[in-house]
């Protein structure tokens, strides 16, 4: 059983510390993943919080048919899409819905280190959402094509093709930006 699954199981058995461990382990990655289609890091953070809130209140069952990360990211994606839709309808929200966490750390800037990586991530951000999403899941979350397919709601074959096209598009984008540093 991977760490996430065991932490979740402990949380279901009543250990709230295990819930904190889940957030510590998965929140950053989930935020960055959601950011690939939310295109706003702050909204992505809020959507990630909604995902963890859903886990806390509803306690959905995890049956181990896929990795815990895959399961969590699938829930996160669906929750984020609903959240984005609701958010687009709301013109005002109660103040209590907002909270501020001290930004002594910035998820994005922490993650991106080095000029080469910065350029790479800028190019990634310029790609279509599907392309950036699949590359993020495969290369930065370490998921297999099958797991990424599960999260994205596509077949493994579609994801394989998507990876191929995404890499070509990323290469073209990098060349357009004049990136010629030791590919």
């Amino acid at each position, binding site marked *: *059983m991977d760490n996430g699954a065991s932490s979740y*199981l402990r949380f279901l058995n009543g250990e*709230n510390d295990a*819930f*904190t461990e889940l*957030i*510590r382990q998965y*929140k950053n990655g989930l935020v960055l993943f959601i950011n690939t289609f939310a295109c706003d890091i702050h909204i992505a953070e809020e959507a990630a*919080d909604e995902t*963890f*809130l859903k886990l*806390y*209140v*509803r306690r*959905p*069952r*995890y*049956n*181990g*048919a896929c*990795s815990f990360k895959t*399961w969590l990211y*699938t*829930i996160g*994606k*669906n929750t984020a*899409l*609903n959240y*984005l*839709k609701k958010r687009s309808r709301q013109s005002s929200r109660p103040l209590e819905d907002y*909270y501020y*966490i*001290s930004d*002594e*750390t910035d998820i994005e800037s922490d993650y991106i280190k080095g000029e*080469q990586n910065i350029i*790479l*991530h800028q190019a990634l951000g310029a790609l279509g959402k599907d392309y950036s999403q699949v*590359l993020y899941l*495969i*290369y*930065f979350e*370490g998921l*297999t094509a099958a797991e990424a*397919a*599960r*999260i994205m*709601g*596509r*077949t493994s*074959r*579609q994801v394989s*093709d998507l990876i*191929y096209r995404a*890499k*070509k598009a*990323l*290469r073209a984008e*990098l060349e357009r930006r004049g990136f010629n540093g030791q*590919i």
Partner: protein
Amino acid sequence: MDRYEKSAAFIMKRGDAAIAERKRRKAVILRSTAALTFGTAAALVVCISLNVMKTPRKPAPASSGIITETGTSAAAPSTAAVTTSVRTSTASTASTVTTQTTAAAAFTQEPSSAPKTTIPATSPATSEQTPETTTIISQGGINMKKISAFIAALTATGMLSPSFTYADASPDVHRVLFTQNEMNMFREYEEGDYSSDINGDGEFDICDVFELRLYGKRFMYCFDKYGHDQSKYAELSEQYSREAADRILRCYGSEGAFRFMPVSSGGTDPHDTTGATILARYYLFKNDSYPSDSEIFSALESRSFISSVDKTDIESFAEYIGKLRENIVYSDTYDDKRTYTDDELEAFARFDSGEVSADVNGDGIEDFFDGYDVLVYHVMKNDRGQSADENEFFSSEKWAQIEANGDVTLDGIVDDKDYRMLNSYFCRNTLTPSVTLDEMKEHLEKCIKEKEPTAERTEKALLAHIAESVTVIKGDPNIDGRVSIADSVAILQHIGNRDRFGLSEQGLVNADVDGIVGVTANDARVIQSWDAGA
């Protein structure tokens, strides 16, 4: 407290508030229900009590002849019954009589403040006794009509009270019974493997059920007309764009292709395998009830649909939901004695006698997991075409065990029918299996093979892979890094069955070797000649 602990604390605080609110609503509903029940019971007791109460009798001269009662001190209890039955019309005790003081000792009734029934004795008066008469005075007859009116008034009052103004729609409270098959499908909808958002508006509502049912009807029309060859489904392709069809097909799983779904228990059509009824049942699962006709019309009118829709489609859908509504089985009305088919009874007899073992997976225990493992085997082998070595779940030994013992229906193949038969056997008289979630998870952990460690993926790896992806190896459609006869076979398989053996985009580029645009059998021939020449 670091930022993760702060975030967790905030989320838990919001979560606790949401859970507390839910509990509060449930408690209010329970209190109101209890109050109404108690009130109704109290009203009934009061009515009964009023009915049997007597007005006190005025002392009268012996020969006043006011009331005639032929009673003795030796009046037997049986006479009480006679009087009671005589007195009552619609209610057995809804009559009032006066109390005869001189006969107090004669009656077997215990002295109490409760109203007493004066009973005329059936035996004739003896010489020692003086017949006495008792005036029977009615103090206001109570009948069923008045009781019904009283209860109706009480109920109406309860309904108008503030505690009854809303009902708890907590999804945790499911009075509707769902089968385990349905619960499995609902999990797929919840976890995203099967999409429930048919119309792609980001929400799941009754409109999605409508769209799927309409698509299913049209698909089945084409299937009946043209058979399996979906390229002939002109009527369907005229109605649905490629994008819309792809989105609908994702409700049949991540493969995105139509498949006949399991029949839902709550359906009206035992042959409805389009998945529409299961999706409708999922709606019921999420919302605790189906929408009314007016709600359906309101939801569907002035909506934009993904195909052409007319009024009869909407009316037909409302009728369909109405029938589903009638077929809902609730836990307090479920009949434990489910009717089994002859095939099931025969199979159960084979299990019970030991002629066929229900311990299909060979773990020494006959339980729900035997059925579950048969189902996984069926999906791996029959749906995905995997073999013992390729499958993700079972060791070769267990695969062989299931293959050898899984055909419990004795039809020559291990498939989902065997799973359903085992499930019926283990879940007799219930709709859900008797295993806990933890037991399920533990079992799956034992089954799932260890995954191979994935290569480290970083920015560096991505950049390196970008360089590699541009490299085209002509003659390597299966992208195994070399050119061999297997590549020729891969091309021919792609041509023969694109759905199952289609090449990837890079594979298509690699496969086109004959100088003519497009992948054809000639490319396969060229590659074969390379292999032979090498």
